[in-house]
């Protein structure tokens, strides 16, 4: 197995073009496990750790551009105030050691439906910046990035450079079911993000379909239901209906981690609860502004 170690982004893209069979590796928290267990045997590993650009984040015209290699621990500590939903999801990833190494870029590369960062990226309208040496940069909305179980929209010569998203314009929450209280792969997960300026709610459903996905009907229902102007309390029936619509958006399976029925049920509960928290925050902000 060859080990490619480009020292710059340009070299990384060149190496990627030259070795389409090479598997990019950043933290290795997923790739190395699979190699150790002989699940995959790539011709080569393309080590992106020396590419310092990937470990940086910046604000460009008010939008956040977060390098694919920024580890979860830094998403939590440096971006927690601007991306609370993603930070909450990051806190649920593995153990402290895993969060030191693992990154959102790795999650996007693996494209597992259970990846914890996908639902908040979907709810927050993230766009994935990918690049190839031959064709340059391509911007792929998160909604179009996930194609199937562990399949993403990346071409063989492309690498993930960063993801773009707005600093949270409103309350965000992430919630995940696991059968223990830490270090657990999602049985199912849900993210919500309020976009008050657009009078809209974003959602992301994880581990309950072949790909992470939005609950579009649930979003549309809420856009019409919520009283953004007067910030009036959420009707219990509206929260219930939202939960039902999120549940209907999922197409889960039975596996060792949980049953399809349980996943659907749990999604409806998480959707209802996270909406309630987010809307209460939104109303609270209103009260604070008023005073």
């Amino acid at each position, binding site marked *: 197995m060859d080990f490619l170690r480009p020292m710059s982004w340009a070299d990384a893209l060149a190496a990627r073009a030259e070795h389409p069979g090479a598997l990019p590796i950043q933290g290795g928290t997923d790739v190395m496990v699979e190699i150790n267990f002989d699940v995959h045997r790539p011709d080569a590993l393309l080590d992106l750790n020396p590419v310092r650009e990937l470990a940086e984040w910046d604000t460009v015209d008010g939008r956040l551009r977060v390098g694919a290699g920024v580890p979860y621990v830094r998403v939590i500590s440096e971006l927690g105030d601007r991306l609370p939903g993603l930070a909450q999801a990051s806190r649920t990833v593995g153990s402290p050691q895993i969060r030191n190494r693992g990154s959102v870029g790795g999650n996007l590369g693996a494209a597992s439906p259970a990846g914890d960062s996908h639902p908040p990226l979907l709810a927050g309208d993230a766009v994935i910046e990918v690049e190839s040496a031959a064709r340059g940069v391509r911007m792929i909305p998160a909604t179009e990035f996930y194609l199937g179980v562990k399949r993403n929209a990346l071409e063989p010569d492309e690498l993930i450079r960063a993801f773009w998203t707005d600093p949270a314009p409103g309350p965000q929450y992430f919630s995940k079911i696991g059968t223990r209280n830490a270090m657990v*792969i999602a049985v199912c997960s849900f993210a919500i993000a309020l976009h008050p300026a657009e009078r809209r709610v974003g959602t992301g459903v994880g581990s309950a379909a072949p790909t992470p996905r939005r609950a579009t009907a649930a979003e549309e229902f809420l856009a019409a239901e919520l009283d953004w102007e007067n910030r009036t309390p959420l009707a219990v029936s509206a929260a219930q209906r939202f939960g039902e619509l999120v549940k209907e958006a999922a197409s889960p399976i039975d596996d060792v981690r949980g049953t399809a029925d349980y996943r659907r049920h749990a999604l409806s509960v998480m959707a209802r609860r996270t909406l309630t928290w987010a809307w209460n925050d939104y109303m609270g902000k209103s009260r604070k502004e008023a005073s």
Partner: protein
Amino acid sequence: MATPIKSPGHVAAPGQGGVGDSPLRPDGTLKVTGEFAYSSDLWMDGMLWGATLRSPHPRARILSVDIGPALATPGVHAVLTHEDVPGRKVYGLDHTEDQPVLAFGEVRHQGEPIALVAADHPEIARRALERIAIEWEVLTPITDPRAVIADPANLKVQERGGIARHQPVRVGDVEAARARADVVVSGEYQVGIQDQAFLGPESGLAVPNEAGGLDMYVSTQWMHNDLKQIAPCLGLAEEQIRMTLAGVGGAFGGREDLSMQIHAGLLALHTGKPVKMSYNRYESFFGHVHRHPADMRYEYGATADGRILYADVEIVLDGGAYTSATLNVTGNAASLGVGPYEIPNIRIDAYGVYTNNPPCGAMRGFGAVQACFAYESMMDKLAAACGISPVEVRRRNAVSQGSKLATGQVIESPAPLAEMLTRLEAMPMPAELDASDIRDLPGGASQTTHGEGVVRGVGYGVGIKNICFSEGFDDYSTARVRLEVIGGEATALVHTAAAEVGQGLVTLKAQIARTELGVQRVTIAPADNTVGDAGSSSASRQSYMTGGAVKTACEAVRARLLAMAERKLGRWLRSFGDLNVVGGKIVSRSQGVLATIEEVLGDEVIEETREYHHRPTTGMDPVTGQGASHTQLAICVHRAVVDVDVDLGLVKVVELAAVQDVGKILNRLSLEGQIHGGSAQGLGLAVMEEIVVSGGLVRNPSFTDYLIPTILDMPPMRLDIVENPDPDAPYGLRGAGEPPTLSSTPAIVAAVRDATGRALTRVPVRPEHIVA
């Protein structure tokens, strides 16, 4: 040749502590800092790596095996099948040799070893395995243990039939008692397959020696019993194999059976080179036996005030394809099937059954765990039916010293269960829920609730476990103790073959030597088979048995030391027979300090070897189950407080409180660790740990999907350790490692039932059971 291992024995035991103190473990710092050498770290220049080809099928006939392409792989030194086993082709525990060294004719479970490869590099060995071609005739696996009991003659995985053991227990007249009962309750309970989940994979090193034999460095619970199985299969005499204990990374019963020992030996003898084997995590799930899953039916009748009149019980344990420890596990399930309660009329039928499911054997609690979940669930059911509290129903039926167990065995030493329950009930309750930190809520950092849907529940559990081997087994231990002056200081060397598997025996052996010999400096020799059998590090027995052997050997050394002192100091002594050794000095009761140990010993060496035997036990009557089959009995009681998110089915165990009678505290730090660890393992069984099997195939052989509790799942514990000495045991001690594993599981499930109102008849409880 330098020894390839650095075992805890090479570290002189530090600290000043005798029995009752809490000196730190000599291997503790090394383990915490990652410097301890485990068996998977063994290394020898020029060694080869062994690898194992395993069956993908739970049941299939092997029509042909082609090793040619594998053998032709560059870097491969040997490819072996059952045809290359020079001696007996089968091995097993307790004279039930039914486990093939390498499969011949048929495979009986997924993961059964078929062929071995030795190569220069583990990667080459794994590639070579892929080149071994096998032609199969795949058969339908036998996977339903109840079907086997219904038709044991036809559904037989083993030639001897489908049932490994049926142990009945018959006391009194159940039918007559049923007619008298005011209250009758019944239940069916299931226990899933729990794994020992030790972190050190099966691994070891076999080195050919000059005499045509082997030096083996193994990670095991019982070296001498390994040797008894290894030697005949390799066609060697036991004397030709030198066994040394390598660093053991946890055991919990999973290392009572052999794993890679014979295989590495075969490859080493065949190639003439040292051979190392080390399973990866996936393989490890197929490399050792698990806890028997159980299917149990219970019916109790009682008076209106909750006094049990009869118990009618059926326990079915699925032992998988080979016998392993199934016979004794079944015996325990039968003899302890109704727990520490006085019940005048009993009918128990316990079955251990062969199937093509994963082989099951020893695991902490050993047959008593499964029954405990059922009988404690029944006690709660009875309490509810009689309208009395769960604690009160247990107190009303509790055994005490002088009570009879289901086997008719009289409990001869203290067993104050009712008093322990009262102490447990009186312990303060944990604080009410503080929802401000989500890590304290069900779901933890996954943020499934901010307090919504969370309901608190409280539950109690009681368990009784036999300590030491039962049913007539003489599981003695041997210790050699040597006293001499080294560098001007009296030094004791303690040598046993007992396996340190993490339980802290190396610490305790030094404590005993300090107490008995009055010396400070104690060295623990590496465990090997140049000293006699120590028996197994299981059944919570090593403090009792090897502790007893070390104590006895020390007493013999001390007697010789004092005789030597009388001889040397005789002309100054006013009377003989009143000398003792205290704090490194020879002391006379009437004259005070007379000399130091060093002055008396000079350059002489005192060495004594002693065997220690526990009091004899009897078998269980094959028809009535009666007999004084247990050496010692130990009781632990738990109270669990849980918060359950009843909408999502997620559980947070808020607190576990325990009262355990240990007879005598030898090392409080180690003891508390044992109780914490045992309780955590019981917590795992209650709410998450299960090897999921369907059609004989394991669905989750990894720590990604076989979940064990983390520090965020295991709550703080409140302990009340009781000391009622057992006059038969060294220092009055009572084995302590297993009892907490029994009672924490039913206590937690009872608490979840209390919070949710659900029946919850199966462990581990899954979220879908709670929200269903």
